[in-house]
């Protein structure tokens, strides 16, 4: 850890700064790549197989991207396992050997990355506000990066009366209604945060009970993570229209966070008045759109698979190849869903369908 300390300190400084130049981004990306190439043996072999060494990497774009499945196949880490490390795991299946694991020897970098970004993109300058969390806490889900993220949001930005509404039996709806009623009565803005599927359950309950709230101006909602088969799937347009209709929060204040267990930095949109919304990240993460086979950038305006280079990912790999399809838009990208493979055409079994069927 001692050898690591100067690097971590520089990353923290980098995140704490207000921005960076292209050269500054490349300089830190290259330092991290050199560190990871040296300390992470499977990653080194992966790079060498592609003929890439530290000499061949001149910008962050040259860093070989690791597919997220690699987080399942092997331990992608630089620091050796330790007592105080936190392990975030991907959800999806219950089998431990098919869950991706991301090792954090310390959470300082992750936490600073989250806090800096959240303050700007979700709090929008407000210091604290009352928050309701529609997701289990860290005790219930110690390996969930989202549980940690939401706990951090609540402890750093939530006022004292902030609370969780998740119980082992599901969402405590009566308490939630009571809290929202009180917020309306006080005229004080309220923030509701949770997994997209938890919010769908709330919307369904509101509809079923014929309830609606008009939350005070400045209230906001953060949803993330999609549906994961835990609720019915709603088209984006319907989802945000219902949110706005049933909770009285304008769509400009319904913010979606796009994050991944394999990253230490999140992307946000500036509300969902229009869907799909443009997502973007802070200065310490950059994204490219690539052809998944060649790894080369797609032509401007073309759909591609998203590759993210996250300088807060100091212990695993900076650069990951996602399974998400995107298209560049302004300073960010539109998220167009997951690459599905083409199993809809016929009767030859495709991997995706097979995995769905066998994990059920």
């Amino acid at each position, binding site marked *: 850890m001692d050898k690591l300390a100067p690097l971590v300190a520089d990353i923290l400084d980098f995140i704490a700064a207000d921005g960076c130049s292209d050269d500054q981004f490349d300089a830190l990306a290259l330092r991290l790549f050199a560190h990871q190439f040296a300390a992470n043996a499977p990653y080194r*072999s992966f790079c060498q197989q592609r003929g890439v060494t530290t000499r061949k990497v001149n910008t962050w774009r040259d860093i070989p991207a690791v597919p997220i499945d690699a987080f399942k196949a092997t331990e992608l880490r630089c620091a050796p396992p330790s007592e105080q490390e936190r392990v975030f795991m991907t959800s999806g299946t219950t089998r431990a050997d098919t869950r991706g694991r991301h090792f954090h020897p310390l959470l300082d970098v992750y936490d600073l990355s989250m806090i800096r970004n959240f303050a700007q993109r979700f709090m929008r300058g407000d210091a604290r506000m009352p928050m309701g969390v529609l997701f289990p806490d860290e005790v219930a889900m110690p390996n969930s990066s989202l549980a940690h993220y939401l706990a951090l949001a609540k402890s750093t930005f939530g006022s004292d009366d902030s609370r969780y509404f998740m119980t082992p039996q599901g969402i405590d709806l009566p308490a939630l209604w009571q809290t929202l009623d009180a917020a309306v009565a006080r005229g004080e803005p309220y923030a509701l945060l949770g997994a997209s599927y938890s919010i769908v359950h709330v919307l369904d309950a509101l509809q079923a009970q014929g309830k609606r709230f008009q939350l005070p101006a400045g209230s906001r909602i953060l949803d993330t993570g999609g549906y994961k088969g835990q609720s019915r799937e709603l088209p984006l347009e319907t989802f945000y229209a219902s949110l706005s209709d049933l909770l009285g929060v304008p769509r400009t204040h319904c913010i979606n966070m796009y994050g991944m267990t394999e990253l230490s930095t999140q992307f946000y949109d500036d509300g969902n008045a229009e869907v799909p919304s443009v997502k973007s990240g802070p200065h310490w993460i950059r994204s490219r759109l690539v052809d998944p086979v060649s790894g080369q950038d797609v032509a401007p305006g073309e759909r591609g698979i998203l590759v993210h280079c996250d300088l807060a990912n100091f212990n695993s790999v900076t650069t990951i190849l996602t399974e998400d399809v995107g298209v560049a838009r302004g300073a960010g990208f539109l998220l167009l869903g997951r690459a599905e493979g083409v199993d809809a055409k016929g009767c030859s079994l495709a991997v995706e369908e*097979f995995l769905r069927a066998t994990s059920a």
Partner: protein
Amino acid sequence: MTTHTVQAGYLPGLTADEVAWQQLSFSQHGTRVDVAVPMLTALQMNALAERVRRASALHLKTMSVSDIIGVIDRAMARLLDRDDPFRQQADQWLPVVTGFDADMVRLGLTAFFKTFRAPQLHRFVAEDFANPKVLDGFQPTPKGGAVRAFGPDLLVHSWAGNVPALALWSFVCGLLVKAGNIGKLPSAEPLFAGWFARLLAEVHPPWVECMAVVWWRGAGDDGAAELYAQADTVVAYGGNDSLDAIRKRLPVTTRFLPHGHKLGVGLIGVSALDTLKAPPLARLAAWDVMRYDQQGCYSPHVFYVERGGAVTPRAFADYLAAELANLHRRFPRRAQGLDDAAAVAKWQQAFEWKLLAAEHRQDALIGGPTTAWQVAYRDQLQPLAPTALQRSIQVVAVDALESVMPVIGAQRRYLQTAGVAASPEALYRLADMLGAAGVTRISAIGAMSAPEAGWHHDGRFNLLDLVRMTEIENSAEMAAQPLARYAD
């Protein structure tokens, strides 16, 4: 880029300007074709179903099976004639809409059409009916009395477009049992079925209203609901999700014959692995992988190869890779869309990372990101699981082919074709085990992706499943005797 427009579907009794048309666009190698597919209202669909039902009662149900075979045979002769305009448009447009290599499509179509000539169709009927005359009239039965087979009045098909001209199987089956046929075109290959209907009407004009070919988007609208409600029997091909969606829409009394996702497997025995036999066998295996880029339900995903021969499983994998490389030069793999490419890259990279993490030092990926095929070699028994298709295949070394049965059996609901290369004794021994595990078709390596005429698709009876039997019991025949004019 040159753009062409083709009108798809076949709608007897409706003119083009009476229906709404949706445009599907396909482009390949600098040629673009816009295919206009018809979308019918519930009212139009209802009238169409009625017309087809009535016409087939008059002009199809009254023909003998042999005469029907004669008509289909004449249509096939046209399709096998490379100077015929129907064949020429198939050769011209099917590669563009499917993206498959033109030569691959041309050879595939010829081989496919040959299995629908008169002798093959007679065998096809005889395969399911010991006495094919039961389709033409009541035939005496050994137990006494008589029996006749009646096909559906209205048979509805929901076709898949993974392989060009796939609609032929069920379309011809429907004709052989004298059903009125209405088919739904697949969006991925919306051309062949409509052409075939037009060709039949040209070859035998009385059939002009005995069939129709329509289209709808996704699960369909009111038009689709109307058609499903009227069908006696529905045959559907496709992913299990879409089959489930169709099943949910059918009245409980409608017979539903689904053909869902399947997972093909090859077994190569030690007796086939000497230095003389193994290389040509690898070539045949490569053909099975190459045909339609593994999109068929019968396409192989894994070859299990026995150890102990002069050619090792690893060497067999190398031969297979070399043949795939050769075949790509002759029949290039089709261009990959982003989704296909992502699936192939994911499969391949997941395997690479397993290798990096690996205990199994013998495993190897032959080919790579830049090749249009990939062979993943595994040195230890692996589960039977699908690859990413698009000519990606696993070769798995095993000590004995018998040891593969548990992993094959574990995928019972996805089993259909197993290719086997083994001695006659071993073939029958393995066939018993494969059949018990759930496999319904055992073919030679090289024939996996070219099923023979009259095969029992997914282990079912293609024609028998479509008909209902009407019996005159012995009692009725006996009771009629005293009522005859000649009765004493």
